[in-house]
């Protein structure tokens, strides 16, 4: 299925404060649609993320925000549309999803777009340091010494150098997630994908993870973050996208979307979030 030659642009996209002038988008999702069986989860999402930007995707559970993120690194194969990361473009091709060259392209995309999961998904049979070097050594074929040096740099960054030789089970939830972030960073990706990174955490441990993420955002990492942490969105996001029933309803600077929502659905979502206490300030 040949894709359109001229890209479809994200009407909301404006380069972020840290984006170098004239930079092309780092991530470009075009007209993504996803069906689970007959369930139409994504209904044509177009999103452009510029280098050094942080984008927050918000919305109710089941709105499609996690699916959109998981389509970006092809953990879910989109039904229609295309994904481009750092100039590498893949057309959705669900009929040939298992083809060798398609899989190879997906692996290239995944190296560029590293994901941090809600449930951490650290490898329980490997020490922290081995969790970190697994990707670089096995996937990028980096030498073990070099991988260890990189891993230690990022372990230091997330403040867990003292847990280098522990097994994940010995860590708290917050520490596990910080290790998972370090594991993603050790791959030196072009963009980081966060899938509700604090939703599985004890409320007292959310802060330490958010702190690391804010630091990354302020340093100019390119990040797409699915989250319910409105405080983080306010602090760190260049743009917030509100997604409802698989389409972007509203997007813009965090103060616009979060404080002056134009759409009724955004307003209802935000007021429900506030009253449920999920947006409690840290």
């Amino acid at each position, binding site marked *: 299925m040949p894709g359109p030659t001229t890209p479809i642009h994200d009407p909301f996209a404006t380069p972020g404060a840290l984006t170098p002038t004239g930079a092309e988008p780092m991530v470009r999702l075009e007209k993504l649609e996803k069906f689970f069986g007959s369930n139409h989860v994504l209904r044509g999402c177009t999103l452009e993320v510029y280098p050094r930007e942080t984008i927050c995707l918000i919305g109710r559970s089941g709105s499609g925000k996690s699916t959109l993120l998981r389509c970006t690194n092809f953990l879910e194969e989109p039904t229609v549309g295309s994904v481009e990361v750092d100039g590498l473009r893949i057309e959705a091709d669900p009929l040939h999803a298992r083809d060798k060259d398609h899989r190879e392209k997906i692996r290239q995309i995944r190296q560029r777009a590293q994901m941090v*999961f809600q449930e951490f998904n650290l490898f*329980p049979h490997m020490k922290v340091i081995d969790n970190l070097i*697994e*990707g670089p050594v096995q*996937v990028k074929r980096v030498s073990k010494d070099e991988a260890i040096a990189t891993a230690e740099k990022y372990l230091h960054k997330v403040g867990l150098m003292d847990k280098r030789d522990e097994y*994940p*089970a010995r860590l708290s939830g917050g520490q596990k997630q910080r290790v998972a972030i370090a594991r993603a960073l050790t*791959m030196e990706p072009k963009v980081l994908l966060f899938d509700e990174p604090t939703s599985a955490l004890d409320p007292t441990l959310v802060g330490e993870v958010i702190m690391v993420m804010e630091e990354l955002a302020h340093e100019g990492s390119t990040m797409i973050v699915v989250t319910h942490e409105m405080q983080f969105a306010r602090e760190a996001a260049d743009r917030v996208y509100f997604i409802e029933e698989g389409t972007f309803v509203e997007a813009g600077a965090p103060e616009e979307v979060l404080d002056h929502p134009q759409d009724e659905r955004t307003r209802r979502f935000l007021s429900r979030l506030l009253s449920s206490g999920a947006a409690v300030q840290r």
Partner: protein
Amino acid sequence: MSLSGPQQVAINENLRISEPELIVAEIRAARAQESRRFRLVFGLTWGILIGLLVGSLFAAGKIDVAFLAEWGPYILGGIPITIVVSIFSIAAAIVFAVLGALGRLSIRAPIYAVATLYVSLVRGTPLIVQILFIFLALPQIIPATAGIPVIILAIFALAFNYGAYMTEIFRAGIQAVPRGQIEASGALGMTDSQTMRRVILPQAIRIVIPAIGNEFIAMIKDSALVSLMTVQELLWRAQRVGQSNFRSLETLLLAALVYWSLTIVFSIVQDRLEKRMAESDRRI
């Protein structure tokens, strides 16, 4: 340990033990004593029952002690062979089982077909038929196999059979690894085979180790069947000595007691191993 009121107070003051702590200590002592008594009675009952069983045979003059003294060492010499055959067979069976499980989980029709055929064929025929087939019928098809030492054929036969049963164990173990693990290694950019080798199998093996222990204990007993292939293990020696001297009672009784002891010993080893693994799981 019952203390009267005044004494108890005195102890409390001297050792600074509070009354609840004292009660807890008393309960613990009582429980320990109960469990000691239970184990003692348990052991005695076993001893008496076994003593009666074997003793009555001796008392009735059915057991030729001199014969056993003469041939016992030869029969017991089969123990190392039984153990070696069992260990090599279970190790080879694990290889068959991993391959079988990967085949059963394959999306490629021919691979899936081969794996299911293997499991179906082996599970659908008696082990004794498989053993006799490999020993007696295989050389008719491939004459070269006649030259292979019987112990190798025996290990192959047992491993081939157990591998089919253990295929299901490994399949379940692989499927018990959480989906998030596969997603995480995929998201790093690992290939499917890297994910299987580096992430899924190491965790699946941990999951199936207790089940492998059970299979090993069963294997010790089933290894007796390779006496049909003239492997000179425990049962083969017992049979040979017993039949040629018309003293099968003594030799089979000895063989049975040895198998029984071996299974008990390896059950204890397995128990210890599982406990150690449970501890290291707490660490991991």
